[in-house]
Every structure is written in structure tokens, then in C-alpha cells.
């Protein structure tokens, strides 16, 4: 009967690839997880689950990052919205990462593995709970809640939009109360994006771990996108050997998460101490300083990063940002300097900024005309969609006409004049 329904659905156009239809594995293929991973049966009032438990010594070092350092969490805490975070010792943090049946989200996705890590007196502790069968989820959630109890802050990578909402949903579906709404949560992804957006091809934990922490994974590693499919295959075949790679992947994720937490805290509290730090990272941190009102530190970092030398787009970007900061602080001269540096390398917006400055601030209309003319020239050489070009041209023409009019009105007098009527222009 099942067979005929499947055939009927096929005939109606339902895509049922023959490779997709899997027969249950032969009993000889079934390899239980405890034959593959060193772990124990963990018992809870809601059934039992599989647990892999591991300890790392106090002097453990993950890539470049030694685990036994004292760090200043203050700016990281402020960034995460918890100004008092630094008052807590490091062992108040628990690191969490899940492996799930998909990335789509929604109530049909569940975590089949939950990895947890924390510092305790004798070093770093790492626990991984695994669902041998989906029905063991209630037991794993109960175990998770138990482990979380003593901790106040959970640290994740992209947990704000993924792991934590997912675990909240799983709690509701099991009619449990989720512990996360009562905890602080630091998500390191947003900060990684800020610092490494321009320098690294990807801000995934794997890529940052490789490029920043200098961790390299062994050949046991399997890429994250393969994980859901591997778990589905395990469920169908009962062969848990390929799951070893998933355990390894999750284990390194947790270690890297802890290492990154230490590194980012240090980077924010004293960026200049890190001699290896790239100019690109510094300008990102400078911007962060700028936004959190630490303007002096920002100026210092901008100057330093410009002196280190930057790739052209970031050199330009930094000039603009720095100029913007300078203008806000009302040191227009410094801003003009920076714009001129940009104009020297054929930057059209810088020419426009200069034209604006000379028109509205300095009121040197001839100089303003010069920069407008220069903007025209740059525009001519640029490859851009026609409609954008047309738009820009018409704006420049308006400016040119207005400047010409002002010059004519003024006659030969080129010195400063009184207030003008047309200061409505938006900068």
C-alpha cells in the first residue's frame, strides 16, 4: 500500500529520486556510537543520552592562544551590552555550540549535538551531548539545563540568531522552560564581522580560527554544510562511524570559541600591544572606538593604521572616516588635508567634499570651481552605469552653475563675505 502511494505520488510529478529512497541499513552495518566515540550513558529523569566528556590541562594552548591568561573583558562586555562583565572571573562563562539538522530554522530543525565548554580549577572542560535517536532530545535538553545551572553568561558564535532561538524553541516543544532568557549572552560573530570584515574572505568561525588563531584542523574535520546530511544518513543506516568527524568538528568549534573570546577581549582592551595586528584590523577597531566615544584613541589608531599602509580601497575609506571624525570635531583643516590626499588618487567624492568645503565654509569659489571641474574629469574616466553617471553629472552641473553665479555676483572680490542664503545643501 505504501509502495503504491509512493508510485502514485511519483506519477503526479513528486520528485522522488531513487537514490533518495534509502533502505534501512543491514544489521551488520549498524555501528553504535559508543564503539566510535569514547563516551558514557548519561541518565536524566527524562531518559538517557550519550555524553562525551573531556578535560584539557590548565596550560593548554589552542593555536596561538594560551588558555591560562588573565584578560580584561571590559570593552568586549560593553560591546555586548554588559558593562559589568569584567567583574566576573573567567569561569563564569560557558561556551556553547550546536550541530543541527539544518540551517533553515523553524520548528522542524533540531540540535542533534550540543557542545559545551568552560574553565574550572583543573583546566578546560568540554562536554558533548549526542542524540542517538531524535526521541532522546528531551533527555539531552534536561542534561543541558543541568550543566548550565551554575553559569551566568553563555558565549556563542552566531548564537543570537541561530543556536539560542533554536534551543528556546526546542524547550517549548518539549514543554520545558528555557534557561537562556535568564542568562547573559555574548555572541562573538558581530564583533568578528566588525574587526575582520575587510581583511578576511569569510567571518565564519572556521576561517577566523585559521587566519587569526592559527589553528589547523586535522583530516578528521568535515565541513559544516555536510553535517545535516551525515546525521540523516546515520539515522537511516545506523552506522555511526562518520559521526566521529562531527564530534571532532564540534569539539574544535568549542575550543576555538573559547580562544577567540580571549583574543577579542585582548584586542579590544589594548590593540597596539598586538604587534602582528594588521592595519585593517586597527581601522575597524578605530571605528569602534569612534562610535563608543573614545575619539582620542580612535585618532591615534587611524594615524597609526595610515602609517602602516593600507590597500587602496581601505586607505580611501579610512581617509574619509578619519576626515569625517575630524570635521565633526571641527578641525576642518585636518579634514581638508585628508580629502586632498584622497583627491590625489582620483577620488570623486573627495573632490565633491572639497568643493562643498570651499563653497560653504571657506567661500573660495574659484577653488570650489577647480574641485568641481576635477570631479567632472574623474567622472569621465569612470566606468559606471549610465543612469548613475547622468545623475552625478547633473548634480555637478548644478553646483558649477551656482558657483559661477556666485562668482559673477561677487565680481573680482575673492575674500570672505557675509552669511549666504543657500546653505540648505545636504552634505
Amino acid at each position: 500500500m505504501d509502495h503504491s502511494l509512493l508510485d502514485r505520488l511519483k506519477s503526479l510529478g513528486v520528485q522522488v529520486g531513487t537514490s533518495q529512497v534509502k533502505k534501512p541499513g543491514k544489521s551488520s552495518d549498524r555501528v553504535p556510537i559508543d564503539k566510535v566515540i569514547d563516551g558514557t550513558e548519561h541518565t536524566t529523569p527524562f531518559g538517557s543520552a550519550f555524553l562525551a566528556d573531556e578535560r584539557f590541562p590548565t596550560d593548554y594552548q589552542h593555536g596561538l592562544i594560551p588558555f591560562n591568561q588573565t584578560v580584561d573583558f571590559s570593552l568586549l562586555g560593553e560591546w555586548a551590552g554588559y558593562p559589568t562583565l569584567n567583574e566576573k572571573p573567567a569561569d563564569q562563562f560557558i561556551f556553547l555550540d550546536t550541530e543541527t539538522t539544518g540551517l533553515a530554522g523553524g520548528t522542524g530543525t533540531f540540535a542533534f549535538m550540543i557542545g559545551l565548554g568552560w574553565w574550572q580549577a583543573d583546566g578546560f572542560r568540554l562536554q558533548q551531548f549526542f542524540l542517538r535517536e531524535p526521541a532522546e532530545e528531551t533527555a539531552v535538553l534536561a542534561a543541558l539545563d543541568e550543566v548550565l545551572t551554575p553559569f551566568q553568561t553563555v558565549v556563542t558564535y552566531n548564537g543570537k540568531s541561530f543556536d539560542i532561538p533554536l534551543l528556546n524553541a526546542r524547550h517549548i516543544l518539549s514543554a520545558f522552560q528555557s534557561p537562556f532568557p535568564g542568562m547573559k549572552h555574548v555572541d562573538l560573530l558581530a564583533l568578528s564581522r566588525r574587526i575582520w570584515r575587510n581583511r578576511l574572505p569569510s567571518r565564519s568561525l572556521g576561517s577566523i580560527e585559521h587566519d587569526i588563531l592559527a589553528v589547523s584542523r586535522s583530516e578528521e574535520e568535515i565541513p559544516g554544510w555536510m553535517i545535516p546530511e551525515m546525521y540523516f544518513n546515520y539515522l537511516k543506516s545506523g552506522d555511526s562511524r562518520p559521526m566521529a568527524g562531527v564530534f571532532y568538528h564540534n569539539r574544535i568549534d568549542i575550543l576555538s570559541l573559547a580562544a577567540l573570546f580571549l583574543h577579542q577581549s585582548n584586542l579590544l582592551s589594548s590593540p597596539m600591544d598586538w604587534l602582528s595586528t594588521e592595519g585593517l584590523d586597527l581601522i575597524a577597531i578605530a571605528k569602534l572606538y569612534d562610535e563608543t566615544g573614545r575619539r582620542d584613541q580612535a585618532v591615534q589608531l587611524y594615524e597609526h593604521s595610515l602609517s602602516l599602509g593600507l590597500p587602496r580601497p581601505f586607505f580611501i575609506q579610512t581617509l574619509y572616516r578619519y576626515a569625517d571624525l575630524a570635521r565633526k570635531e571641527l578641525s576642518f583643516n585636518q579634514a581638508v588635508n585628508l580629502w586632498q590626499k584622497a583627491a590625489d588618487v582620483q577620488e570623486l567624492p573627495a573632490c565633491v567634499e572639497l568643493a562643498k568645503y570651499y563653497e560653504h565654509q571657506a567661500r573660495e569659489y574659484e577653488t570650489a570651481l577647480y574641485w568641481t571641474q576635477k570631479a567632472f574629469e574623474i567622472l569621465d574616466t569612470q566606468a559606471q552605469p549610465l543612469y548613475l553617471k547622468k545623475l552625478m553629472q547633473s548634480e555637478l552641473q548644478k553646483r558649477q552653475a551656482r558657483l559661477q553665479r556666485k562668482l559673477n555676483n561677487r565680481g573680482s572680490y575673492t575674500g570672505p563675505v557675509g552669511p549666504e542664503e543657500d546653505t540648505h545643501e545636504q552634505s
Partner: protein
Amino acid sequence: MPNRLQALLHIWRTDPTIQQSISQWVVQPAVPASLAQIPPDLTPALANQLKQRGIEQLYAHQALAYREITEGKHVVISTGTASGKSLCYQLPILNNVEKFPDDVTALLLFPTKALAQDQQRALAQLAAAVIRSKIAIYDGDTPSHQRSAIRKNARILLSNPDMLHMAVLPHHTLWVDFLRSLRFVVIDEIHAYRGVFGSHIANVLRRLKRICAFYGAHPQFIFTSATISNPQEFAGQMLEENVTVIDVDGAPHGERNFIIYNPPLVNVDLGIRRSAMSEGMRLSGDLLTYQVQTLIFAQTRRAAEVSLRYLQDNHPAISPNLYAYRSGYLPEDRRQIENALKTGAARAVASTNALELGVDIGSMDAVVILGYPGTIAATRQQSGRAGRKLEPAVGLLVATPNPIDQFLVNHPEYLLERSPERALINPDNPLILLQHLRCAAFELPFSLNEGYGKLPPEVVGQYLDALSQMGELHLSGGRYFWTADQYPAQNVSLRTTTPGAVRLRTDEDGQLTTIGMVDTASAHWMVHPHAIYLHQARTYKVESLDLEEGQAILKAVDSDYFTEPLIDEQIEKVDLYRSDPVPAGLIHLGEVEVTTRVTGFRMTRWYTSENLGAEELTMPSTTLRTVGYWLALSREAIKQLEEVALWTGSPNNYGPKWDQQRVLARQRDGYVCQNCGKPENGIPHHVHHKIPFRQFTSFIMANQLDNLVTLCPNCHRQAEMLVRMRSGMSGLAYALGHLAPLFIMCDPNDLGAHFLPESNLAEDLPVVILYDKVPAGIGLSENIYRIHSELLKAALELVSDCTCQDGCPSCVGVSGENVAGGKQEAMAILHLLNGLPLPV
């Protein structure tokens, strides 16, 4: 404006050029309101709001609805357009939410976003201040940063079924508080949810009830509907529970004129009438001249655009105050047009049925409907747009030559009194069911022995096991877990069985702008390469269509022609479900496979309708497995027809000298096909009668050499097809295909209709087939099978009533060049199929 309208109506009534073409003019006198007391148990705030808005009493149906809803019943409210249906649910919902703000939530679903916005305004005006901030819209336009606050705070949520399906149910854990307290669910305008769409909606409701039950909530459902014949049955089918109907309309209205206008015949023999478009535009022009605000309903998006062009050309002075309105426009443009209607700035709007659903545009003085809009409910709803509370109004249906229009011209009682329409859905269509079972399993694992809607666990179990075999579910601990890295709701479009959409983009100076969307299925014929596409009366030519990318690139052109696709279809039998003898034949119900391909398109000049030729296209073909109803004529009936020379479907006896003439013709033509030039290859070519043999009274005349031509078998079949197309059976297919939608309440485009001369569907007998244009069918063919005799009776009336000589677009279809029409044949066949003796 009433004086002006009355003056114009007087002219119409007396002007012979118009009056002659008016086949029906019904005046419904003004009706006073039937009133009832405001319920005593309203919160003071709500009672006060009513008082402030000048509402001292309720209409009878509003009071009744309040009572039934308060008693906890599921209800369906089916009263006229603008009868205050919304207040029927607004009062009990607001009253409950205001009394128990922590324990009661309500979910209101509207078929369109625009309706939700109207309702939010209306509810906010009526609600107590504390509740006002808790009335929120949650749809695709809701900014993502507002969504979590809405989930937390909303007590009354306005949304649409698509959003419930796509965003709410698959994330129901984010809605725990809202769903736990869910007390009322309103489904507005359910008559919009027929066929495929309705079958999807019924499944979304099954899923909603399932999730609510998980949170311990058992909400009460309130439906509203336009006037259809079976609101109670329909709502009951949708909900799978008993629903109480409220259909006594207590609202007052001014004098209403309803006119059916049948454009005059310009050729009586051929049954050609002046076009509904040009006549409709003439009448609309009169209304514009008399400054009567007019809403024009066109049947297609193109017709709406064409109407706008006509009006703009003929009324240049008010051209900026004329608009078109249809789906595919951007939301902000639509809002602007709606407002222009409300404020009166729009003098006329030519719309598709996009405006038919209760979008708040106020009431018009006049509505002109260009051609029967496909259902009686829609006709009533569209004409109901005309009519302010006290002033006179006119609704005008301009009939097209379509058989259904002409049938209604002669049977206005269907429109005015008894509607035969039964809205239908089939929530258990296997494809639709499978898609929603996927979604439901994703939302919450199914347990062994769990049912779904009214489906028993055994049936559900079969589907779940099939999904397990496909690897999408995994049975563990007695529950089926979702084990696919997919978000199934994303792959389910409620509007079609085939998901996907094509963006229409224009390329101007390197800037790509999206001007609209069409669904993938329609894209094949609407925006195939080189098609002319109309948008706000502007013409675009399709440069390219990329179905995989879901994008068509259009270029604005000044085109003086439009295009129509040429479509090729093949039908094969897959399975026979049942068959029954009927007079003169056998009817069948079964599964068929239809293969369709757009092979090219025709170009026609605007206004003059001059044929500018055709172009071929290479488009992929699409295959449809579906359910069909087919009617095979018995050999006895064929014999009977042949005896009176009214059968043209079988080989003729060509007379004694035929063999000799045939040799002569082939000799003359050099044994070469005169159409494609192919020479004979051992087997003699066919010899074809240019003027069909059966039209001659003597063998000698028919078989004269200059009436004969040599054709290869392939070309001959094509030539014969032309003749067969005109036969009685093809006329029958034409009539049935056009008439059936009147009874089964579907769009004519939901149904395919063909004549197959020697069909393998029924032992090589001649067959007329009607089939559902939806994979696995949606129940249309089953229903046609059921109403076969009623349909055949109506078809006979249609053809008998038609005044044409030998077939016209209004009965059995046009007759082609050089070939007789099939009207006499069709009449004869219809007599036999109705169990009547052949007409003398």
C-alpha cells in the same frame, strides 16, 4: 451625482440604439434597514465608541452574528457587498479582548494585504485606547525589526493565509503566548478560496488547529463570504466542523439598477456581435461625460490596460484622472489608486478582479462589468460596488459572445435569483495534502496513530511512511521527526500547485527595475520571448525569459500590435476510475496525462485586429497528470446521426468512381504532396477534398478534379483536423467547456476542453474531454461527472437559444473559412445525449 446618473439612465432607457441592446433591466427599489438593539453586555468603552460614531442600533444580521459568536459557535456570514459584515466580528472580538486582555487573542486573515490595512484602520477606530496599540498587521511588508515586538504584544493580529503558512506556523514557538490565548480566527472573503487556493487554505487551517491544540487552544472560527449558494457547506468543508450560517441581510440600500447589455448583432448569420469592449467603453464614456464616478471591471489584466487606453484616447482632458488597477502593480501604486477612488480624484478606474475583494474604496455610482467575470458571486460582488447607502446606482454587465455570457443573457434568473454555484475545494488532493503534511510534520512531529483534519490515522500513516521512504521523516520513539535540511513551507505556494514566480524587469540605461511579477506557469504564455506585455497602458516587448533564474527582461516599446500564444496539447489515458452509460453514450472519470507546449504566437494589430502573422518558439513542454471527465458517443448514436447525414466524424463513402478520380489527382500532382512537397515512397499519398465531401449532394460534383488535391498522410491529417474541428463534437466540446464553470464555480482557465476524434480514451470512439488543469485534479471533473445531465440540458438550451445560422462564438464556436459550422450536428448530438428524439 444621483441627478446626473438618473438623467443618463433616462437617456439609456429611451435611446433606441441603446435600449434595444438592453436585454435585462432590473430595478431593486431602495430597502430600509432592518435594525436590532446594541447588545447590552458590551464594554462601556466599546458602547461609547459606537455611540460616538453615530451607531445607535445594529443591522439585524450584525446583532444575530454577535449572539451566535458569543454563544461560541463557528459562523459564516454571507450577506451583500457593503452590508457591514466586518462589524459582525469586530464587536464580539473587541468586546472579549477588552474584557480579558491577558487571555484572549484573535487572528484575522484577509486574502490581500490591502484588506488587512483597511481593517486595521477600522478596528483601531473602534477599539478602546488600551487595545489600539495591540492591533497589528503581520505580513510580508512588516519590517523585520518590528516583528518580535508584534509577536510579544499583539492581541489582535491581522495577516493573510500565506503569512500564516510561511512565517507563523513553522515558527509557532515564537508565538506561544499569542497561540495559547487564541480564541477567535476570522477568515474573510472565503469565496476567494476556491479550487486550488481553497484546498491549500483548508490545509493551513488543519495545521493551525493542530498547533493550537498543542498549546491547549481551541479557537472559534468566523468566516465571511460573498453570496454563494452554499456558504454553510463551503465553510463547513473548509473547517471540517459544523458552521452556523447568517445570511439575512439587514442593511439598507438606495435604488439599484442592474442592466444586462448584449451588444447588437452585426452579422446575424455568423452570430457576430459588436465587441463588449467597444460597447462597454461607449457606455463608460457616457458615464464619464455625465461625471458619474465609474469602476470598470475587465476580465483580464490585458483588458484592463486596453480599457484604460481607450478611455485616455477618448477623454484626453481628464486623462490624469483615469487609472488601471490590477495585480502585478507595486503596492504603493495600488494604494495611491485606492485613495484616488476614495477621494473622488479618480474619475474612472479600469480594474481586474483585484478590486473585487472588499478593498475599501468607498462605493461607486456606477460599475461597468466587461463580460461575465467567471462566477456569479463575483458578478454580484462587482456590481455591488455600485450603490451608496441612499443614492441610486447602476451596475452594468456587458455580455461578450462567450457562451456563458449568452446563456446568462437568456437566463438572468441565475444571476438575479437562484445561484447554481457551489464553491468547491478538495483538501485531500494528494499533491496538496502531501505538501501540507510535510509542513505539519516540520511544525510538530506526528505521532503514530495521529489523524490530520478529518483524515484518519491509517491514511495519514501511509503518507508519513511514504515521506519516511523518501528520507524526509524518521520514525523514532513512536514519532515521525523531520529529517531534511529544508523549510518545506518555502516550497509551497498556496496560490498554485506549481511554485515559483518570474520577475518582470526593464532595462533602462543599465538600470534593472522590477515592474511586476507573474507565476511560473503563467510565464510560459504571458511573457514568452517576443511577447508584447502591457503595464499601465504602456507596451513592453519581452527580450528574454529565463525560467531558471525566474526573470524576464522587458523593453519599453511603442508597439502597434499585441500577441497571443499558440498552444499545443496532447492527452493520454492513465487510469479509468469509473464509467456510466448515459443516453447515446458513456461518461468516464479517470486519470489522464496532458502534455502542453507553447509553440509560437500570433501578432494582431490594435483596433483593426489585422493579422500580422505568427512566429514560432522553442519552449519546453510541461506535463500534467490530472483527472478528466470524458464523454464518448456510442456507435449506435453515430449511426443514427449518419442516417440523417449529420455525422461528419467518420469516413465517407466516396462513390463508385472514387478510385479512378484518386489516381487521376495523384497523376496530375506528380505524386508529390501539394502542401509539403514530399514525394510518394512506395505507398500512395492521400487525396483530399478541398470542400468537404459531405457538403455536396452528388458524388460527381464532390469528386471533380479541381476539388481534389494530393497530400501526404501527415498533411492530410492536419487538413482533416481543420474539418473535424468544425464538427458537431468539437462544437459540443466548445459549449461544454464554456458552460461548465457556471455550475462548478471555477475559472474557465481551470478547465481544459477538447474534442478527440478517434480516442484511445474510449476504444477509438469520438470523445469530448474536460479535465482539471491542476496536478491530480481539484474535484472539478468529478463534479462535472456528477452534474452531467444538468450540464447537457443547459448546453442544449444554449445552442437552441442562439440565433446564429451555423455556429458562432456564443454557442458551438465559429465556423472557419470554406467549412460549414457544426451547429446542426451539435444540436442533433445534444438531443440524443439528452435522451430526446432527433429534431426534424
